[in-house]
Structures are given as structure tokens and as C-alpha cells.
């Protein structure tokens, strides 16, 4: 299964991913200029969180045991058989927000204006997720979940060296692992 990995050391918090996700996946106009004029305002499925010093682009981790799936009151959330991605069938969603309470990463968002919940589906029907495609620093990367451990090892080594060299206090986040200097 493929998931989107986030390289925290490369994320600058520029929100390009957010803007393009909202425009490409959430708007009718498909251009930024048109998107900002639409009502309700299009919403992104990836959000840049954290402080300005340690920003991080957050989106659904496509958990293997997804609490949101168990919580959904209508079956609107389901796992796509082929890709393993957790998707929302919007026409079954009643906007009850139960799923938003159960996602430990806080990455299913209520969208009250449209009465539906919103989450990243990894752009499963597209070749490459929009956010991965547009990120200027390549902080977002589509990886196979089996590659995860390998990447993590490389990342840990890189980060430790980088931190020592630059005496920086921020860390690296890949999938659901946060490493901080000194830990």
C-alpha cells in the first residue's frame, strides 16, 4: 500500500500543498483565482500544522486499523479494496462528525458548510497526489508502506548528522514518527 510520507526537515510551512489540494480537489473552477471566489470556500485535505519554526503538512495516514472506520455512523467511510485507502462516500455522509472525534491525528475535518467530513484519499484515482506533485521542496513523497522502515532508518541517520552539524532543534517526521533532538 502506498502512503504519503512527510519529510519534516524539508517542510517550510509554505502551504503550497494546501492551496493546490483545495483548488484541484475541492473547487469547481480548478484555478486558485476562481477557487477563492467560490462559496462555500473550497477546503484542503492536507493542512499545515505545527509552529512556524517546525511546520508539518498533515494528512490521513490511512491507518491499518482505522478508528474513523469503526466510528462512522452511516458506513460513509470505507476502505478501498484495491488501494487500501480509507475513502469517504460523500453521498452517504450525514455530517455527524463522529469520525472527526476518533481520528487521533485530527485529519478528518468537519466541513459544516457542505455538511460532510473531509479527508485525504491520497488522490487515489489520480496518478500522483496533487500535494506530492506541487511541493516545491519535495517534502512530500509517495512511498510504499513496506519501504517505510528503510526510509525511516536513513532518515534517522541523516537527521542525527544534520542536527549535530547545524545544531538545529527541529526534527524529522515521517509518517507517524516524530523525532526530536536529544531523544
Amino acid at each position: 500500500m502506498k502512503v504519503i510520507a512527510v519529510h519534516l526537515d524539508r517542510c517550510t510551512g509554505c502551504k503550497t500543498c494546501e492551496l493546490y489540494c483545495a483548488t484541484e480537489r475541492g473547487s469547481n473552477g480548478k484555478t486558485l483565482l476562481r477557487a477563492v471566489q467560490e462559496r462555500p470556500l473550497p477546503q484542503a485535505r492536507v493542512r499545515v500544522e505545527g509552529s512556524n519554526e517546525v511546520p508539518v503538512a498533515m494528512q490521513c495516514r490511512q491507518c491499518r486499523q482505522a478508528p474513523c472506520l469503526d466510528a462512522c455512523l452511516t458506513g460513509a467511510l470505507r476502505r478501498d479494496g484495491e488501494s487500501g485507502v480509507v475513502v469517504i462516500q460523500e453521498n452517504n455522509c450525514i455530517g455527524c462528525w463522529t469520525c472527526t472525534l476518533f481520528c487521533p491525528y485530527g485529519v478528518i475535518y468537519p466541513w459544516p458548510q457542505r455538511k460532510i467530513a473531509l479527508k485525504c484519499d491520497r488522490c487515489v484515482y489520480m496518478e500522483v497526489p496533487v500535494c506530492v506533485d506541487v511541493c516545491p521542496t519535495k517534502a512530500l513523497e509517495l512511498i510504499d508502506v513496506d519501504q517505510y522502515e528503510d526510509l525511516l532508518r536513513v532518515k534517522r541517520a541523516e537527521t542525527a548528522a544534520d542536527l549535530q552539524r547545524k545544531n538545529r532543534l527541529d526534527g524529522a517526521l515521517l509518517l507517524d514518527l516524530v523525532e526530536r533532538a536529544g531523544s
Partner: protein
Amino acid sequence: MDCVIIGGGVAGMRAVLSFRRQWPDKTITLIDTEKEIGYYRTLLPQFMNRTLPENKLFFWQQQDDPRVRVISGVTVESIDRKNRTLFLSNRDSVQYRRLLIASGGRPIVPAVCRTAGGEGIYPVRSLAVARAARDWLPDHPQVVILGGGLVGVKTAAHLAGYNISVTLVEKEKQLLPQALSKEASALVEAELREKKIRLLLGSTVEDLRFNRGALSGVRANGAWISCQTLFVAAGSLPEVAFLSDSGLLQDGRLEVAASLQTSDENIFAAGDAVTIVDNGAFTPWTWPQAMVQGSLAAANLYAPTMSSLRCLSRVNAMNLNGLSLAVIGLPVAGAKRSVYSRPEAGIFRELYHVDGRIVGGALLGDISNAGRLHSLMVSSEPAGTDFNELLRPRLDSFAGTTSCCVKYNRRATLLSEGA
């Protein structure tokens, strides 16, 4: 028969699915009082106001599975544990090797509402009753709802505005008294009043009046209200009376450990029927809990080593046809309370915390970040000291993005050019 499940609500149904996956060679029998099973109980209010079509109400269709036998429209009346036998209302009996009790809850119906023979009184719980109420409502649109808890408030919010006039009667002086602080519930009350729902707080239904066998009035606080339909949503009790001679109940409660095993090693239980004894007694009363417990109980039925429930909380979210509401945890007496409030925008967010750990709270109007706050609470992780920051709503996309991102966008561009 390898396994028998009593109850085809969400806990029982989920158990069937998990059991079939985990033990494909074993047989299973599901028994339920109701004729129609495998539906979303939580959507009954939307079904009654006719916004939810019937085909969207069901999550399960009976399939041709030779290892699953479904007996519906039949009640389990008693159980003989020595011979591992269940006695049914149709005079049949069924034997089990392992038993899962998922009999859910039953509505509390106060004595005054139990008048036999009178039409127009509907306890909110089953599809059969909801169907009858749905057919009754168009000709009897003056409605009183007894109970201002989750089910009463939800039912009121969904019925109001469909040519139905609604009066909600609650005995406490606030709505959702078990889930919300007084301040938070004031917002819910304002929202319901906005929907033209009449609220009678600190009142109860004292008497009923009938005209030719049909309800015509309800007396609350000494005054008669003209009303043809009464929904009873005064809370629930675990449906365990049929176990009274089984020796399984302690003080009338069906107690289970965190593995969902009862005091009988061959019998497990899940969902609204159980009282979980693990650091204090706890009955979840929520759909997500019933779902998770159904799966876990099925997995533990034959497991050599059993797993335990990890997350126990009574969280709930609602969309009252406009006002979003997320209860992260119930108010805790003696805990510190931090509040974020913007009354002009209809936003109120509060957290209860002890020693820097979240122990309860609720978000109204803006429920952003609810998942993270709930997960911090159930993991008992220290949430830091800045509760005001934790409570601050998260911005929507675009809002504030364009102004703050210019600087960082420039940094990104510089970095990518250097790469």
C-alpha cells in the same frame, strides 16, 4: 452450534462479521427480537422526518452463508448455563459452545407514559416503533419529547421544521445535563429555540390525556399542552432482564472484564448491554464503542490469549442541523477548566484538566482539532500548560493562508532553487 449471538444491533452484527473472518470454519447463530436487523439505530430521527430513505438505513443484508443462521423476530427468554441452552419465545431452544450477549439497551418509560391502549406514545429505540411514528406523524404534528439527553435533543432537532411543532421537556434545568456544562448547554438551548422548539426545563410529564384512545394532551409543570404524539427519550437501561435467573448478573448488571468476558468463561458480552468493570464501572452507550466491542468480543471468543479494550470513553459528536457539537469527555467535578468563547460567532470550547492532562471537555460551534484533543485525553498524555492554545480553533484552508504563507513560500522557493 459453535457460537450464538443474542442481539443483531451494531455490536452483534459486527461480531458476526469479525467472527466469520477470524474463524471461517465455525458456525454461528444470531437471534434478535426485532424482525428487521442490521440497521443504523442512530439514524432513526432522520428516518422519522423522511429525509433518510429506507434503503440507506440498513448496513447489512442477509447473505447465503451456510455457516450463519439468523433467527429474527424471536426473543431469548432465559438461559440454562449448565446445559448451555437458550430458551426462545417461539418455544424452541438453542445450544451454544460460546455465547455473546449483545442485547443492547431498552428505553426507560416512566410509569405515567405506560398507559395501555392509548395511541401516540413512542419510545425512541427500535425501527418498528420509528416506522409506526413516521406513519403517525403527518396527521398528528403536535409533538412532545420527554428527555433532553442525546436522543431527545437529536430527535427534536431533526423533527422541528418538518411541519411539526416540538416541545422538549427535561427534568433538569439544562439540556444534555450529563454531557455538558451549564454554559455549553446554553448554546444548544439557543440553537433549539432558534428552530422554534419550545423548551420546558426543570419540568416533567405529569399526566396524559386521551381522546377516543389517542393522545390529545400532556401535562407538564401543572399546565396542559395540546399534543398528539409523545416521544419518550428519558434514557436507557441495559437490556439484561432475561438473564435474571442465570447467575450472570451482579446487582442487576451484566459485568464484564476489559476482555469482555463475563463471570462465565464461555460467555462474552458487548455494547450497551454491558457494564465494564475496569477502574470503575462503565457503560458506554455509544455506537463506536458498540462497534469496537462487537469485534473484540468475537475475536476473544476462541482466542488462546485474549485482548483487552484499549479505549474507553463516552465521547459523542452531533450536528444539530446547524450547530456542531463534540463531547470529548464529560465534565469532571474538581478539575480545572479552560474556556475559549466567542459568543458573537456561536463558538464555545472548554476543556477540563488535572495536572496538565485532559480529562473532559466539549467543543461547540467550531469542533476543529476534536480528534487530537480526544486522543490526548484517552492516552492520558500530558497536554502541556497552554490550554488556551490547545483550545484555539484551527483555521480553515485559505483563511489566513495567503497572508502568512508569503514569507515561507519564498523560503521554499529559495530552498528548491538551491537543491
